[in-house]
């Protein structure tokens, strides 16, 4: 039947209730601080009960941020954790090329609410090697926290310090006890998912990018639903539009719950019993 009345449209498709509650394990504080409250409110309204934030720079997305920028970004996340206890959590953002990285990790991971580490695009040294990443991964293993890694297959070549899914697969092979999350399905999602498939210590999140039809199904088919996580990449993207990827995916309802809650609850909060 064709819906014909005006009200039919909004009544016909709504975000399914089974996606609530959700954990968004990949979001960022907005650079426009006047938007922060609005953003947290939008997250709650779409059914997100835990929001894991990480900075990618306080004032802008700086590929190799100085230590002041790193600290300001993490301080901002810490402030949001404290002002929204039980709702906002954090990942410690580091530029692994900085000599202060170990101190930064130690300091912020001591703070209640930080549940992991975030690596963005400052991962290679001046020779293009991945050496700066290894101590961060070893630190994460020591503290038993996951590392969310921005990793991308980018047409035309990656940014200078940017990991590819191939790089992440290499790190995963070197450190099988590390818990690594490949952000954004690895950019070009088919290649990204395939690259990390052999490594059971790599999860992936569906954040960012456009809502590619079939991408969630492909991730579940190749990796298993236990290795797929919901993240939005807000403020750069919409909470709801990214959550709709899970709603729309033609996968089992139980797999959808794993993606939006169970897997992140286990990985970041050590909660083995599904909610």
């Amino acid at each position, binding site marked *: 039947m*064709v*819906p*014909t009345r*005006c009200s*039919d*449209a*909004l*009544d*016909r*498709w*709504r*975000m399914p209730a089974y996606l609530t509650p959700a954990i968004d394990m990949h979001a960022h504080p*907005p650079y426009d601080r006047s*938007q922060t409250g*609005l*953003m947290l*409110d*939008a997250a709650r*309204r*779409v059914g997100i009960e835990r929001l894991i934030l990480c900075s990618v720079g306080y004032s802008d997305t700086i590929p190799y941020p100085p230590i002041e920028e790193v600290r300001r970004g993490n301080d901002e996340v810490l402030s949001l954790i404290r002002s929204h206890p039980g709702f906002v959590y954090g990942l410690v953002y580091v530029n692994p090329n900085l000599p202060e990285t170990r101190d930064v990790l130690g300091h912020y991971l001591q703070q209640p609410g930080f549940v992991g580490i975030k690596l963005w695009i400052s991962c290679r040294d001046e020779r293009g090697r991945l050496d700066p990443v290894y101590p961060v991964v070893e630190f994460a293993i020591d503290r038993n926290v996951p590392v969310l890694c921005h990793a*991308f*297959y*980018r*047409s*035309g070549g990656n940014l200078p310090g940017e990991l590819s899914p191939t790089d992440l697969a290499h790190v995963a092979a070197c450190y099988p006890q590390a818990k690594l999350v490949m952000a954004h399905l690895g*950019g*070009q999602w*088919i290649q990204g998912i395939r690259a990390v498939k052999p490594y059971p210590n790599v999860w992936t999140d569906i954040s960012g*990018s*456009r*809502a*590619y*039809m*079939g991408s969630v*199904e492909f991730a579940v088919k190749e990796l298993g639903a236990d290795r797929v996580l919901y993240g939005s990449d*807000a*403020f*750069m*993207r*919409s*909470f*709801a*539009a*990214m*959550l*709709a*990827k899970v*709603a*729309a*995916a033609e996968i089992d309802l139980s797999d959808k719950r794993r993606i939006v809650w169970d897997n992140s609850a286990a990985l970041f909060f050590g909660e083995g019993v599904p909610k």
Partner: protein
Amino acid sequence: MIVDFGAYLGNWPLYPLPIRDAAGLVGVMDRCGIGAAFVSLVDGAFSLNPRDANERLKSMVAEHAARVLPVGSVDASSPCWREDVVAGIEQVGLAGFRIHPTYQGFALDSNGVVALADTLAMAHRPLFVASFIDEERFQHPAFRVPPVSLDQIAGLIRRAPETTIVLNNLTVEQATALLDMPGISLSNVFMDVNAMDKPFSGLAQLIQHHGSDRLVYGSQVPFLYPEAPLALLQESTVPDDGAKAILEQNWRTSEVLRGLVESVSLT
């Protein structure tokens, strides 16, 4: 009724699209409460014989004529474009034409496109312009195509003011820039919202500053989940009346679009 102004059928060279035929498309439309969709053939954008592509599209959607409005392909740089348009409208019954200028290799504000746009205005058919199909950063390394430039979009709008133009896949940034542009009338121009999910609250801010009357729903199914822009319109930052207008009302303000939709949905 929700109308989708950005749907496709057909084949994509990089991977199999998850919807193979019109029945599959209509199934997804039902899932989302979409009443009708303007649908073009994605491989028609690359066809050396658009007339053949248009006939293929028509045969693909024939059984779903009450829901699917076929949108033809045309190469504005071809000497045959005019006869392809006439045949497409008169013999195939096309509801408009979609062009992908950067994939097809012509400038949007070229004389050929302006003449095409004028022809469509006289035929009471819309011209759909896809800014891009796949994101530049994920394109095949041997087949990299930029989005259509805003200058060219503005150039066409200025030179073809009588044509109903539907712009697919503009970003919030591009749409805002177009709406801010002095000396340009957008009264016959509509923009779909499917690439307006970034940044957070970007669409809401656009609506706050410019209203929603130039915006329509477009899914880019089967490349994208059609639920994503529906969810975007339900995010708390987007006003309900703006969302309703985008989904169901704005297209009705265009005599051309309303006439085409009503011609199928009332049958």
